[in-house]
């Protein structure tokens, strides 16, 4: 029988259908008088949602091009920076040029007199406490007038003593950040006596000190906001943020409006990497000015201010003493670590990181300085731990004469996926044919080839925080909506794809709406939790919409509700003999005027957590110049259920690139005497560009067959720097223990600098 639509049939509200599940009876065990007994109980008849088997997926687990790609490359995508509103003013911020200073002069009157300036706000007129501490803001009719206004303030600062380097900050009597001084109380774990004894008894022992610089998030779009408030009871804030809902709520507070009256909008954003969770000072200032002027305010940080005041990945120094048995088994680890997180505590994962040792002892201290506080940055604390750890693993391996892959496998859990990943990475990078497996190559010629390895782990699980709506209109259009944000990771794309999969539709037939706090709640996007929190809720909503749609069609067509299949060729019914497809459009035409809506929430069984990752790097070192050219990077990573393989590989590649920058070129440089940052721009702060990008092999570890979604953005940024540092050493014997590995350090390590 052909499924013919009956356009004007009476229809029950599908929303109620979806939300009032029937009851069903299930069997379960119950302890009765101390004995397990099987009993029958009644529960809600909610169809259990599950991801289809991987082989049955039509859209998901394939390469899905980014749905917003064309908008991004054509410039149609509107970022916060791009927002222009009638009557809008531009605001700019003056920051402390010194780590600590008394503000001795701020010529507010002169600034007010600058043509176009409409408002001058003194944020703190007395003293400043860190390099980049906001001092004043000026709002004007144009960006240029606002900048002129800042200069007209002709600020004069009187230096107060500061600590911006490890040596100064840890001296007794050093200019202190807190009243307890700069050196935090040591946090320890493990047993020192046992660790020392284990080391003493080790046939092979090494000791070395490793240093990592402060790394910047280097978001292409600087931090900032456009506040649309013109007086009255409503406001809209356009924000470059990792937490659209949180931002709107914070803005409401500063504007003095109920949270329900403020809308946060974040359609596209140019990077966050952990630095954009809150509205920060610049957001507060923009709201204050908007409230005062009753005009929209555009406040995006300039590049220098971005470098100084928007957070960073903490740096640090770690001294490690480690030992192993003749077979490579780690015996003892002794670690003394210092974290450099500016005003913050810094962040550092525990050693021996993914590996295990018979005994370990670790003491970690924060060293405070008069610099902006560290913030979360893609896998907080982990690259800082991985680089020294992977380095010392190699140092032990060479000292004991053990193959670099073998020593890793020896000290990672036998049943862990790293074992197979190391084999795969070794194969892809060409380890079998590499001549230097147990000692580095000689520093001869112009191109010494070396290989290095590293491993990492991350959680990436989700939580019940997202509310998703799937909406089907009478004309056949479909929308998946949630207030979440797309950090550039592909959130929008899988929101459309999951719904498309459910209904047998092409991805392009589903619109994804996000980046608006009026839409359903969502998580803050950090710690790789977004996908594992949001994707299950999308699936839940889509599945509920499908059930509701089937129930509706069943009523319209007089067929049993559970026989419907939504396929690319149309909607089929299993119960009908020789089914003829009913087109999606025709079926939707039977819906009531308001269409069909279903709401979804997180379903624990649709998500999973815990990802292992292994990387290998092949480099060429020129011992005559110290040049390091990364030739090839390989990453093998678990991902749980792959939603979009293209986006997954893209995340992995992005992680490898960020690790490459950390390894060979990035790092904040501060002159401790003048108290200024010497590289607060993209000319001198060297992120990798097109010509730095090596061949990249991003491999999804498909032996991970978990049918749950996991966030994957953090693991690939972790092991790359250690792998590259190890490859440099493997190539020619240059062990550089301080990142970034620049030519001067390589020449130094080779003993060429006298």
């Amino acid at each position: 029988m052909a499924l013919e639509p009956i356009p004007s049939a009476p229809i029950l509200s599908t929303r109620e259908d979806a939300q009032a599940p029937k009851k069903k009876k299930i069997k379960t065990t119950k302890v009765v008088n101390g004995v397990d007994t099987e009993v029958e109980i009644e529960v809600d008849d909610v169809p259990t949602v599950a991801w289809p088997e991987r082989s049955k997926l039509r859209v998901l687990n394939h390469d899905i091009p980014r749905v917003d790609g064309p908008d991004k490359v054509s410039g149609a995508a509107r970022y916060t920076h791009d927002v222009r509103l009638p009557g809008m003013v531009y605001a700019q911020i003056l920051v402390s040029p010194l780590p600590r200073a008394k503000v001795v002069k701020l010529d507010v009157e002169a600034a007010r007199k600058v043509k176009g300036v409409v408002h001058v706000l003194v944020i703190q007129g007395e003293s400043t406490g860190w390099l980049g501490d906001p001092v004043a803001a000026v709002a004007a009719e144009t960006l240029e007038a606002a900048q002129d206004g800042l200069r007209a303030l002709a600020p004069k600062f009187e230096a107060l003593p500061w600590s911006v380097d490890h040596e100064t900050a840890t001296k007794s009597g050093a200019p202190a950040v807190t009243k307890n001084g700069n050196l935090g109380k040591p946090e320890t774990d493990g047993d020192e006596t046992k660790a020392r004894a284990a080391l003493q008894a080790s046939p092979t022992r090494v000791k070395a000190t490793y240093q990592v610089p402060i790394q910047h998030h280097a978001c292409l779009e600087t931090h900032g906001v456009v506040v649309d408030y013109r007086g009255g009871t409503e406001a809209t804030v356009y924000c470059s943020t990792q937490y659209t809902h949180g931002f709107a709520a914070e803005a409401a507070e500063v504007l003095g409006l109920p949270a329900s009256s403020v809308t946060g909008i974040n359609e596209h954003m140019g990077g966050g990497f952990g630095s954009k969770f809150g509205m920060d000072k610049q957001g507060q200032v923009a709201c204050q000015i908007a409230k005062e002027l009753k005009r929209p305010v555009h406040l995006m940080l300039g590049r220098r201010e971005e470098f100084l005041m928007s957070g960073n990945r903490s740096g640090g120094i770690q001294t490690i003493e480690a030992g192993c048995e003749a077979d490579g088994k780690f015996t003892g680890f002794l670690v003394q670590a210092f974290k450099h997180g500016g005003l913050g505590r810094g962040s550092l994962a525990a050693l021996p990181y993914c590996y295990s040792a018979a005994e370990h002892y670790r003491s970690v201290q924060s060293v405070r300085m008069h610099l902006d506080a560290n913030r979360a940055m893609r896998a907080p604390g982990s690259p800082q731990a991985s680089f020294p750890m992977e380095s010392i693993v190699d140092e032990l391996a060479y000292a004991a004469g053990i193959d670099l892959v073998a020593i890793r496998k020896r000290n990672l859990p036998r049943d862990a996926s790293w074992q197979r990943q190391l084999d795969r990475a070794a194969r892809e990078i060409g380890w079998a044919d590499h001549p230097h497996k147990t000692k580095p190559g000689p520093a001869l010629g112009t191109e010494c080839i070396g290989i290095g390895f590293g491993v990492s782990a991350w959680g990436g699980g989700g939580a019940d925080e997202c509310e998703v709506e799937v909406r089907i209109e009478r004309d056949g259009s479909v929308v998946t909506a949630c207030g979440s944000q797309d950090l550039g990771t592909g959130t929008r794309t899988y929101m459309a794809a999951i719904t498309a999969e459910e209904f047998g539709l092409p991805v392009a037939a589903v619109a994804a709406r996000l980046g608006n706090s009026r839409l359903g709640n969502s998580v803050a996007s950090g710690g790789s939790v977004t996908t594992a929190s949001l994707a299950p809720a999308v699936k839940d909503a889509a599945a509920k919409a499908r059930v509701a749609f089937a129930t509706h069609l069943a009523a319209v067509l007089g067929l049993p509700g559970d026989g419907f299949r939504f396929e690319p060729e149309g909607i089929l019914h299993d119960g009908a003999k020789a089914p003829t497809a009913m087109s999606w459009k025709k079926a939707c035409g039977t819906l009531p005027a308001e269409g069909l809506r279903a709401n979804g929430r997180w379903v624990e069984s649709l998500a999973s957590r815990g990802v292992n990752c292994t990387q290998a790097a092949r480099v060429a070192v020129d011992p005559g110049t110290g040049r390091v050219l990364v030739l090839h990077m390989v990453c093998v990573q678990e991902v749980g259920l792959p939603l979009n393989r293209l986006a997954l590989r893209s995340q992995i590649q992005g992680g490898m690139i960020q690790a490459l920058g950390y390894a060979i070129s990035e790092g904040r440089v501060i002159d401790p005497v003048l108290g200024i940052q010497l590289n607060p721009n993209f000319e001198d702060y060297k992120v990798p560009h097109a010509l730095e990008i090596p061949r990249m092999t991003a491999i999804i570890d498909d032996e991970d067959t978990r049918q749950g979604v996991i966030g994957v953005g953090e693991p690939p940024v972790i092991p790359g720097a250690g792998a590259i540092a190890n490859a440099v050493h493997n190539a020619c014997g240059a062990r550089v223990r301080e990142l970034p590995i620049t030519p001067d350090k390589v020449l130094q390590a080779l003993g060429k600098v006298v």
Partner: protein
Amino acid sequence: MKSFRLVNPTTLDEAIDFASDRAAGSSKFLAGGQDLLTEMKEHLSGPDRVVNLKSIPGLDALDSSGGSLRIGALTTLSRIERDAAVRAHWTALAEAAHSVASPQIRTCGTIGGNLCQRPRCWYYRLEEANCLKKGGTECFSYGGLNKYNAILGGGPTYIVHPSDLAPALVALGAEIVLRSKSGERRMPLEKFYVLPADGDVTKETVLADGEIVTEIVVPKPAAGTRSTYVKFKERESYDFALSAVGASVVLEGGKVAAARLCLGAVAPVPWRVERAEKVLVGRVLDETAAREAANEALRGAEPLSQNAYKVPLTKTLVERALLALAR
């Protein structure tokens, strides 16, 4: 950026008049703007008037028909790097032009602007550091963070000259032509640059206020001439040199009849090393000769606390440049 008036002269004389009119305030010549605009944005330069040289016709000639190479000051780097005659006969210049920044910058940047560009020293480039170069009292690089600074010819400032074209042109024996109210002067390019110890530390050249670079003239190479420019940078994508060498040799019967070597990014001026040139004359250009010349080129280097690596690095570059010419 400070507000300024943009003037568009149509003749050289008019441009010189504009720039010499002190009553109208300070002025700066604008060529491709790739350096000047960054200086103005950072408030290192704040002219009242910007005199646009691009509005003057005829300043962008590139002509080798007479045997020597005449390059108008406004000729862009991308034109120079692509010109077939330059690539064939003045190879070092083509290679140097190609090594500058990025294609986008080379499309706008000119040879005149490249030779007159200001230093890139961290301290000089930051407005907050009132260094000697900017009229302050101290060269902060001397006791500060100096990995990019000078190992030769430094003091009292330790900037390095950033131009890639200059060392190549010095190696090719180029001359520079200047024009001002008091007429035209012409000099070997190496005389155009002055060491901080020999003149005004806030300047790098002999260029007077209101004086314009009009042309660069590179002599016709003698038979048997080969030249190259070897640049080493920290990052493959756009970057300034950590060290560089422009080299030109005349080979006759397998031996060096004449040589010119000029180092870049190691001294406040393009650093010609005549003693190293002498080492080569009359010899077969082999590894030993190259090594001796390299050692000679770096003799007298006085590294600061963090840039001693430039010594072995530059030696490597000199050796490699010479051996490349021998091939």
